[in-house]
């Protein structure tokens, strides 16, 4: 799997590095100029978040395009390894490149925001995060990213089964993703009574109380939602097992 990952990385490393470099430069410039010129904090925050979202979208697209290229590539399909490793290496690649954006965002939050006027705007002065909170938030973010990409890849695999060269497969994949993510989210909320499953992208919730009381941070999926997490873990194993079969037995090339 790591050998496959090596070549996934080599193929797309230029794109990844350039996106991350542009993101860092843009965030730094925007932060300094915005702070110096006293731009509205709400607008600064919104634009900054939009830049992170845009970078994430690019990473999702890069990872997804890489996955479908692997499914269609003679060189990859001829390799004498179990098809599950093609899926796992693509998942690892996508998760890592998306986590890189999270890390930059976290660094931004830790290194720049405390020394800017955004601290007062976001009322972060009363926030008390423990090391465990940070670990849970990070683990939840990693798991959430992995699970969402797994859903996307599963949907793409189903779409590719329909017609690897045609357009119908794209629409089938989109429909499968919508249905599957809603089913998993509904089960998570109904059975496990957990509002934030990985598919809802809920990671951190901050509840503000009176000024004298520190804000509380709760994290979904892990920690407070063990049942939901275990359900998603079982769902992930099942989806991976289901994906291996069409790659091995059904996909044309």
């Amino acid at each position, binding site marked *: 799997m790591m050998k496959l990952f*090596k070549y996934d990385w080599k193929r797309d490393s230029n794109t990844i590095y350039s996106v991350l470099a542009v993101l860092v430069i843009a965030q730094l410039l925007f932060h300094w100029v915005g702070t110096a010129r006293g731009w509205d904090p709400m607008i600064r925050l919104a634009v900054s978040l939009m830049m992170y979202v845009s970078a994430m979208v690019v990473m999702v697209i890069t990872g997804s395009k890489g996955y479908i290229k692997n499914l269609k590539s*003679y*060189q990859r*399909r001829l390799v*004498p390894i179990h098809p599950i490793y093609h899926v796992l290496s693509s998942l690892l690649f996508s998760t890592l490149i998306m986590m890189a954006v999270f890390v930059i965002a976290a660094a931004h939050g830790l290194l720049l925001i405390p020394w800017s006027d955004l601290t007062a705007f976001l009322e972060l002065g009363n926030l008390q995060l423990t090391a465990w909170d940070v670990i849970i938030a990070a683990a939840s973010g990693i798991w959430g990213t992995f699970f969402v990409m797994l859903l996307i890849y599963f949907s793409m695999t189903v779409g590719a089964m329909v017609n690897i060269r045609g357009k119908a497969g794209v629409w089938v994949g989109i429909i499968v993703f919508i249905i599957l993510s809603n089913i998993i989210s509904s089960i998570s909320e109904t059975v496990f009574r957990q509002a934030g499953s990985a598919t809802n992208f809920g990671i951190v919730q901050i509840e503000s109380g009176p000024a004298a009381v520190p804000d509380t941070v709760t994290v979904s999926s892990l920690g407070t939602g063990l049942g939901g997490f275990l359900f998603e873990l079982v769902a992930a194993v099942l989806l991976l097992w289901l994906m291996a079969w069409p790659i091995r037995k059904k996909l044309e*090339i």
Partner: protein
Amino acid sequence: MKDQILHLQGVSKNYAGKKALDQVSLSIGKGKIVGLLGTNGSGKSTLMKIAAGLIPYEGSATVLGKPAGLESKAEVAFMPDRPLTESWMRVYEAIRMQRDFYPDFDENKAGQMLEFMNLRDRDRVSTLSKGMLERLQLTLTLSRKARLYLLDEPIGGVDPVARARILDAILEFYDEDSSIVISTHLVREIERIFDEVLFLKQGKVVLQDEVEQLRSKHGKSVEDLFKEVFAE
């Protein structure tokens, strides 16, 4: 059946209702160079992809007794009629990828073949001409010590000089304990290297025999027989 490298029994393949292969049964013995001959659309590439374990099929296809698929991929070196390498690679990266995934890949042999083919390590795959790309693909394929080599149209779409070079490379570098199946519709160029030929017409095997037998039986070259069998 275990004496045969490749054995197909009642193999069929449909693409959206169109029969690409229709109840194909054949066997390829050890140490043979077999020509898989047919016109465009006769099912040659489909047959090769099935033998390479790439696509689903009906019937039975085995390589050294193992079902064509995940179990047999390690025994088969397949050169498709489409690019095998990814366009972002350089030649040395394509070599490294083969080395990483195939324990039977002979890097020394690959080096010799690159020299024979006038290919440079640092050339980008995306800058190679069609002929040079075919040479690289052949290098990647024949540098493996596989039991079965499948070459799909190795000389299609390349100039006569490159064709001669590719055919010389096949004879120079192939392992005589293995078998090679070469699909082509350019019969005249390649007839000289075949031990056996197999004619595939509209997804069916219409003829399979040793080349010498065919020539003495029919008093014709393989090319003349090809024209006769596939005449419209």
